[in-house]
């Protein structure tokens, strides 16, 4: 188990380092960041001073090592545009994104698992077919477009929800959250549902496939032959068996939800990390771009690692394999 853990952590570390090199070189090697930072008409001396200050005159690999060294000390550089430490900038936007992503995952789970169970339990029913049709739409229709439709129907036409923005927040444990108030929920519900749609489609499919497989298994027939009620058959056998793939996907998708929040945040003008990165790419604010990408990759890899470990706990067969 320890060996397995160390191996996975090393692997995760390699990915983060590789991505940091690619991102750093890719973003810094192209174009001249100084042009973005200052008025092109400003004098040469100021220019030179800035180049010196940011170290743009040194070789790229040296810049990279300085960057990595600083990063390990919690210094991710300073935004060209906001003139703020990048780390603070991103961290100040993190709660909004996390809140949105977690609410989306919650919606996807609370809707997706029951719907998938039903679709798998009665696979030939009309309702099951409708659910499956919905799930196909859920992950083939581009999410920004669904976001627009949601805004048009629920904000513009019906006026049930605000069309965008985050609304009031309260500070909880140093983070500004909007899910603490009813009004905050009215702001988060539409974007969270939008962000949830893709996972919802995926979860419905997975849950249905797992349910169909388990319902057709010998052990479910055996359980029925023992006189277990249908509720018990589903609650005990089906749920336990589908929990493994679902936890995996849930974990992996948490990472991609953070990434896809970029789109939803732009559509709903939600002030999270995603909105920040899009704005930064448009104005070529490189330190923010690099820091965001490395941070997201880091989060992603960490989540994968945790999912791997939980997976081992859930499936006794894997645990045995890892031990031997």
């Amino acid at each position, binding site marked *: 188990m320890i060996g397995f853990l160390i191996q996975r952590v090393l692997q995760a570390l390699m*990915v983060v380092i590789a991505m940091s090199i*690619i*991102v750093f070189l*890719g*973003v810094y090697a*192209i*174009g001249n960041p100084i042009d973005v930072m200052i008025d092109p008409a400003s004098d040469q001396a100021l220019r030179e001073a800035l180049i010196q200050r940011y170290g743009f005159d040194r070789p790229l690999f040296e810049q990279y090592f300085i960057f990595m060294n600083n990063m390990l000390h919690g210094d991710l550089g300073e935004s060209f545009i906001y003139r703020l430490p990048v780390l603070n900038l991103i961290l100040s936007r993190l709660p909004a994104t996390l809140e949105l992503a977690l609410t989306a995952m919650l919606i996807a789970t609370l809707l997706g698992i029951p719907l998938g169970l039903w679709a798998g339990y009665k*696979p030939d029913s009309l309702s099951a077919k409708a659910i499956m049709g919905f799930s*196909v*739409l859920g992950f*083939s*229709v*581009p*999410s*920004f*477009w669904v976001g*627009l*439709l949601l*805004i*048009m129907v629920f*904000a*513009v036409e019906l006026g049930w929800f605000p*069309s965008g923005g985050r609304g009031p927040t309260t500070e909880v444990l140093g983070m500004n959250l909007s899910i603490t108030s009813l009004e905050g929920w009215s702001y988060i519900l539409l974007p969270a549902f939008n962000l949830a749609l893709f996972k919802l489609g995926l979860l419905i499919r997975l849950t249905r496939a797992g349910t*169909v497989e388990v319902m057709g298994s010998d052990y479910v027939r055996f359980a029925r032959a023992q006189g277990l009620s249908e509720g018990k058959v589903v609650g005990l056998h089906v749920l336990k068996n589908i929990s493994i793939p679902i936890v995996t996907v849930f974990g*992996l998708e948490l*990472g*991609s939800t953070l*990434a*896809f929040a*970029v*789109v939803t945040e*732009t*559509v709903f003008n939600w002030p999270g990390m995603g909105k920040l*990165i*899009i704005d930064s*790419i*448009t104005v070529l604010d490189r330190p923010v*771009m690099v820091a965001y*990408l490395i941070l*997201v*990759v880091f989060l*992603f890899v960490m989540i*994968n690692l945790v999912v791997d470990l939980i997976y081992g706990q859930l499936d006794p067969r894997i645990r045995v394999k890892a031990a031997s």
Partner: protein
Amino acid sequence: MSHSPVLALPAETGWTRFSNFWSDFRQSPVAVAALTVVVVVVLMAVLAPYVAPQDPYNQEALDLFDARLEPGEVGSGGYVHWLGTDAAGRDIFSAILYGLRTSLIVGVMAGTLALILGTTVGLIAAYYGGRVEALIMRIIDLQLSLPAILLALVLVAMLGQGLMQLVAALVAAQYAYFARTTHGAASAERRKDYIEAALSTPLPARHVLFRHLLPNALPPLIVVATVQVANSIALEATLSFLGLGLPLTQPSLGSLISNGFQFLLSGRYWISIYPGIALMLTVVAINLVGDQVRNVLNPRRSR
């Protein structure tokens, strides 16, 4: 089935294979409807200059008096703007046709290049095996674990904006799917005895690659290619919507929707909704066709 698929080929001609495929495909009315939509969309995109009442990007032909006309109103051109006009007086219907053209070009181009690149990488991994295979597939797996939108963002951030940059970003984000598919099918075949036998003869490597390994990977590749073209179109639209895709001088469906977004709140829904419907129809139809192709080519995996 350990015999070579090449030996099985002469028994059935290309035509009978196609007609078998078609008679299976027809079983699903939804898929046939979807295929019809795809054909119509492609035809409209190809024939855009002949079908569209207006060239939406010829600035001189636009009249600001026609700006933001509602669907069904008649503009100064004397014809009905069935889907309305945008803020610059562009006929939305014409803009959609031209936008479809761009979207399809980007999608098909990215899909084809990703197919070529991914298939090559996958075949190389399957053919050489050993450490080359392990290294390549490790990288592919890592890449697949990262969301496509994130990779596309990185690349757009690195390369800047423009048609070629966009296609490059899409290819980089998607080739890995082809590589894994090809590798899966080809390496299963690679382990069979007849390939080992063929490798021990002085046959050129390309013979084994193209006569044996590639044909086995083809059916799943066709499915992945269909779905990836749809994904490319959707991803391109998403990036364009985010303002990271194509500039407004080369609008795709995504930039059209983005262009109309600001008018949505003021009730001028048509500027972005109609291009959006076109996008949705295209993407969903291609996906449904892909689903049915998968069912026909691999009946075991359906249900």
